[in-house]
Each structure stands twice: as C-alpha cells, then as structure tokens.
C-alpha cells in the first residue's frame, strides 16, 4: 500500500510533527508499505496528485494539519486519510468548541470563559474580568483557543497575572479562554478505533506543569502507564474518554487529556492527531496495551481505508 505520510507544515509544532512523521514512516516501512514522506507546503495538492497515494497518514500537529484543513483537501481529492474526519478535527482543534460539545454531552469539563481580542478592544470585556475571576477563582489557566503543545498556556495565580497571561495567549490565537484550575492528577487516554488504551499518568518533575519543554525532553517528566489508579477511577476515566470520543465524532485514533480530582475526571482537551514521537504518550499507551507501535500504525491505516469504504490491506 502506498502511504503518503504528511508531516511538518507551517504550524508552530512543525518540529514535533517532523519527528512524529519520521517515526510513522519507519513503522509503515517495516510493515512493508510503500512510504512517501511529504513535508507539507504550498505544493501539497500538486504532490498528492502526483504521488497518488492509497492512503494519507496525517502526522501533522497544530493549525492546518490538526484542525480539519488538510483533511478537507484530502476529502476533495478522494484520498482516504488517518484519524478523525474534518468535522471532528475542527471541533477538537478549538478547545472552546470542544468544551461546548462536552458540556452538551454531559461530560465534565472545567468551567471556562472565552473571549476574542475584539471583546477587549471594542466591547470593554476588561470590565467583566472581575466577575469572571470571581466565578472561576484563582489560580486559573489562560490558553489560546487553538494550538497545542502548551504554547501560550499560562497559569495566573493572582489577578495581576491575568493581563500578561491573556496577552501571551493572544499571541497564538485571536480567541483565548480562561479556565478554572482543577487540582488533580494529570492523565491522558489514547483511543484506537473508539477503544481506550491503558491510561498514562503524567508526573512533571518541575514546578510548572504546563512546561512546554518537559513534554518533549526525555527525562524531564515521568510517565506511568498504565496509571496506578483505583479500579473505579480507572473506569470513570476510561468512560469519560470514550464518551468524549463519541461526543466529538472521532475516528481512527485520538488522545483525550483529563484531570482526575476528588469529584472525578474532567476532560481538558482532545488531540485529533496526538504526538507520535519517541517520547509521545499515544505510542506509550499502545505499547502498554501489548500493541507494537508498528502494528498500531498499520491498524490506523486500515481504519482509514474502512472509513473510505476501501479495503486497504496489503
């Protein structure tokens, strides 16, 4: 099977995507697929027409690749592709949209308020900050609505931290959100074809748990997989992840990040194209499930074909 591995691109997560893509290429080559690496750029459509792959493995992270844009093009070209479809990607990529979906489906997610820059510039949103802060309490987390890898994510421990945190978040997106901070254990659940893989617990070694560095540097963060949880907690987390998958309409594979506090799990966000690098959590989870990364990639390619109605087997 000829698989075009889409990676790189223009997003700020380009480097991570290149590493994800490289690892996927190796895995697919080992399975005997014909692998065509494609560093995504302005010539993407032309390249795809030229290469005519049987399936596209989307290993793009961040804007353009994880938000449904590349997927839309692949739909138009009639090329089966891995991971969630256009609508699910669009929902997952925007944390605010995703949270609305979660709320509507009755899945717990921390309270939040979202704004775009216009609200501050033209509607005097600053005057509502006091009420917002009173409702959400401190510390709160300020994030760009879109974008992954914790870029632009800041903790605001006090009132005075809020303007700078907002400004940082606005550097990455025109819309930002303030979210209630939920103290709890940081968990992530990889899903393959709608089924939860073993839960990963993230134990940052450093104070700042939104440390972008720690996510990609070996040895900076400890991971436990499967997470050491009471059965009831593990079940609740798994169920929340599966419910989230359904609520957003995911397909193929995805990863759900949650926090587990005393009242139970709360869903933070969904990654439509989770990292697949050597230090990424999704591969860690498949391995813990006894599934080699290579075979997981093979399965993901198969699922892409199934959705497209074409049997993609060797």
């Amino acid at each position: 099977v000829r698989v075009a591995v889409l990676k790189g691109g223009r997003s700020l997560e380009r480097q991570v995507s290149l590493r994800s893509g490289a690892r996927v290429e190796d895995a697919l080559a080992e399975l005997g697929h014909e692998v065509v690496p494609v560093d995504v750029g302005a010539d993407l459509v032309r390249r795809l027409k030229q290469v005519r792959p049987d399936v596209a493995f989307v290993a793009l992270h961040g804007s353009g690749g994880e938000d449904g844009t590349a997927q839309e093009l692949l739909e138009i070209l009639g090329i089966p592709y891995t991971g969630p479809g256009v609508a699910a990607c669009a929902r997952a990529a925007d944390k605010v949209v995703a949270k609305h979906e979660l709320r509507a489906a009755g899945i717990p997610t921390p309270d939040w308020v979202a704004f775009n820059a216009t609200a501050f510039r033209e509607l005097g949103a600053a005057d509502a900050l006091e009420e917002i802060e009173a409702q959400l309490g401190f510390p709160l987390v300020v994030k760009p609505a879109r974008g992954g890898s914790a870029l632009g994510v800041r903790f605001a421990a006090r009132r005075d931290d809020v303007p700078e945190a907002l400004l940082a978040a606005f550097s990455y997106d025109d819309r930002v959100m303030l979210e209630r901070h939920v103290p709890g254990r940081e968990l992530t659940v990889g899903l393959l074809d709608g089924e939860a893989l073993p839960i990963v617990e993230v134990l940052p070694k450093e104070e700042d748990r939104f440390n972008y560095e720690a996510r990609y540097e070996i040895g900076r963060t400890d991971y436990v997989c499967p997470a050491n949880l009471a059965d009831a907690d593990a079940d609740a987390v798994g169920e929340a992840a599966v419910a989230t998958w359904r609520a957003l309409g995911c397909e193929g594979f995805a990863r759900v990040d949650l926090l587990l506090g005393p009242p139970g799990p709360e869903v933070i966000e969904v990654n439509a194209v989770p990292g697949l690098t050597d230090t990424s959590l999704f591969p860690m989870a498949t391995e813990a499930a006894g599934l080699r990364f290579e075979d997981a990639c093979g399965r993901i390619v198969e699922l892409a074909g199934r959705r497209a109605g074409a049997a993609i087997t060797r």
Partner: protein
Amino acid sequence: VRELGDSPSERPGPDLPAHRRPHTSARDLERYADLFAARTRVMRSSAMRDLMAVTARPEVISLAGGLPDTSTFPPSSFAAQMTRIAQESSAQALQYGPTEGFARTKECIAEVMAAEGMRPDPDDVIVTTGGQQAIDLVAKTFVDPGDAVICEAPTYPGAVPVFTSYQAETIQIAIDDDGMRVDELEATLDRLAAAGRRPKFIYTVPSFQNPAGVTLSAERRRRLVAIARERELLVVEDNPYGLLRYEGEPLDPLYKLDGGDYVLYLGTLSKILSPGIRLGWLVAPPPVMEKVVLGKQATDLCTSTLTQYFVAEYFAEGRWREYVASLIEIYRSRRDAMLDALARHLPPQARWSRPEGGLFLWATLPDYLDTTDLLARALRDNVAFVPGAAAYVDGAGSSSMRLNFSGSNEDEIVEGIRRIGEVITEQVALYGSITGEHRIAAADPGDAAEGGDVVPFRRAT
C-alpha cells in the same frame, strides 16, 4: 530530514540502511535517558527552538540570524584561490596539519590583530575551528562542574550552552550603553570572595556586543583590565566584530591594554571573511596554551588544513582590508535603515541600542510583553527576531529582542521592522484594553517625526 522522493529508488523500501532502522520505543529511550551525562541537561527552551525552526521558512524576513553577507565575496577570486591551492599544494592541503595551526595562518591572524593594535607572540596563538571552538576550549580548560563563570547580561546566546555544558554556574552582570557595568562586576566579585569563591573567568564581548550592540567604554576597559590584575582573574575577550566599526573612534582591545597576562583573546574570520570556512583563534599565555592544545587535540586534532590554505591565499592577495571596508559600507547602510525604521514603526514604549558597529541591536519592550510569545505572533506576519531570553541563563530578558541588520538587505529590513512594529503596537494596545489603561496611542506609521525618538539604551538594574 528525509524529503519526498520522486523516483521509486528514492523511496525508502524494506531494505533500510542502518540510519533508517526503525525507531526504538519510548521505553528504550528512557533507558538511554538514564545513561546521559548530567551535562546534557543543557536544554534551552524547546518552545524557542521550535519557533526558531519556523523562522527558516523562505517567506519569513528573518532578522533573527547572525549571518554576515557572503554574497559580496567575488566568486572569481574564490575560484582562483582554490584553483591555485589545487594546482600548487594539493597533497599538503588535503593532509592533517599541526594542532596549533600553520605558521602562515598565524601570520594572517597577526595582520588582523595588528589592525587593532595588537602584536601577540605567534607561539601564544592557536588556530581554532571558528571562534565558537575557542570559547569551548577555554571552558574545557578551566571549568569544573559548579565553577563560577561571569559574563554580560545579556550575553552571546551561543556562549550560554557552552558554559552550561561544562556545568558552570553562569553569573551575569548587567550592562548599559557603555557595556558591562564594572561596578556591578566588582560587587559580584566581592560577594563571591566573601563566600570563598573566585570565578574561573570573565567572558565579555567588549565591542559591538552580541546581542546588545553596545561597546565597553574606554574608561571601563581600563578598569576591567585593572580589576583582572588586582584580583588575578582571567578575562576572556571575544572580539568578532572589532573591525566592523561604522562610526566613532576605535577603542583599544582589552588584550592590548593588558598585554596578554590576564586577558585571553578570541578572534574569528567569520564576520570579516566567511563563517563557512570556520576559522577562529585563541591567544593565551604559554601555560594556558599548553592545556588548550591538549584540549584541541582531543576535540579535532587540527583546524581544517584546506581552510588554512585558503586563508593564506586570500591574505597573500593583500586586499583583505579593502573587503572589510566594503562590508563596513554595506552594514552601515543597513544599520541606518534599521534605526530609521525602528524610529518610524516602534511605539514610544520601546527602546533600543544604537550600535556603532557589529551586526546586532537590542530592543526592549514594555515588561508585560514576552518576546517568545511575540515571536509566535510575528511569525504569523512572516517576520522573525531572537527572543531576549536566549541571551540569559535565568529566564530574564523576556521583554527584549535581538535584531540583526547584516543578513538582510535594506528593503527587507525596513519591511521587517514595519511588521514587527505593527505587531508590537497591536499588543501594546491590546494590553491597554485588557488592563483598562485606555488606548495607549498607537504610533502612526506614517508620521516619522512623531513616531518616537531613539531612546538611549538603559537597562533597569
């Protein structure tokens, strides 16, 4: 990074070459992680590294690099010099050379140093693979884990990982528009002495400093050399830009003032000839040199012989000073274009240095702006700079940025600064509306007269 292969033969097939063998699992990598030396925990910001990777896109006007303009070096001269080497000295030029470097190379170095009034003994000179290796060799020679090393705040971003990789405790001394604050240096030395400590050396770029663009004043130069003598401390003078002066009177290098007892001198041809040839040097007294030579032997045996032959041919033509003079003309115009654009496009809250030479200037924004985040925003408008935090070891400098004016032409510089100015103005206004400090007037891009004068460079200390 592998690229898309058009022909089937380029596509990776099942017969993978060794370098393409399947990746190891995350668990295997954790196993390596246990083996890594403590010094590999240098780890600079990955966020910044990922952002910097995006600055390489062709559509981005990058004021982030530190690149000299090599396009003005005449290809015909290059061809003639290399041809002469091939015809007359092929076997020698392809052979190993002495660790210290060839005598002929040292004669060229002597010419360059003489242009700034220095006359080192050739035996005190070692030719290195770029100035960067000279920094590395100095650190390798002197620094044990935990040793204190002093440098400027901000300092050359490329020096930080060197010091960190030898596990130095890097202490930074504030600067102002006259360079390193030597009064603060003395206070720091006193503090260290009180704790029974002595820094292994004081690293400084006294002329047209990277990244700040400032120059250590004559008075402070004398004082710094005197401090070194009084306290028997080493100063490492890194002087890549000394000959690239666009205005004002040349100042004596520290090495000249000291005579080479307490000042180690680092030089390079990167900015006055080519960074691609990787030719630098270190001047140090014999006892130090002995250790440095051993260090270099362990690292790479010798500096590229071919490079040294090329340098000798180039200097033999006797026109190197003309070439430097031509670079000065080009870079002066670019600096002026940048200063002019800054005055027109940056909001009044911004300040920047006014370098008399070199390749960089340093702009400081209101402290609520984080330039790493700002870079992400600027990249959406296809313009890049170096976030200030890269020049500090402790996360400071987050509201400053380094701007390079040697690597882009004047049109690019003006357009790049216009875009940066727009982004800053937008963020400043947004901050105003968030905090309710209402509508901090945006600078009118069309109004040069009112757009903000050049504000003298003052660092808060």
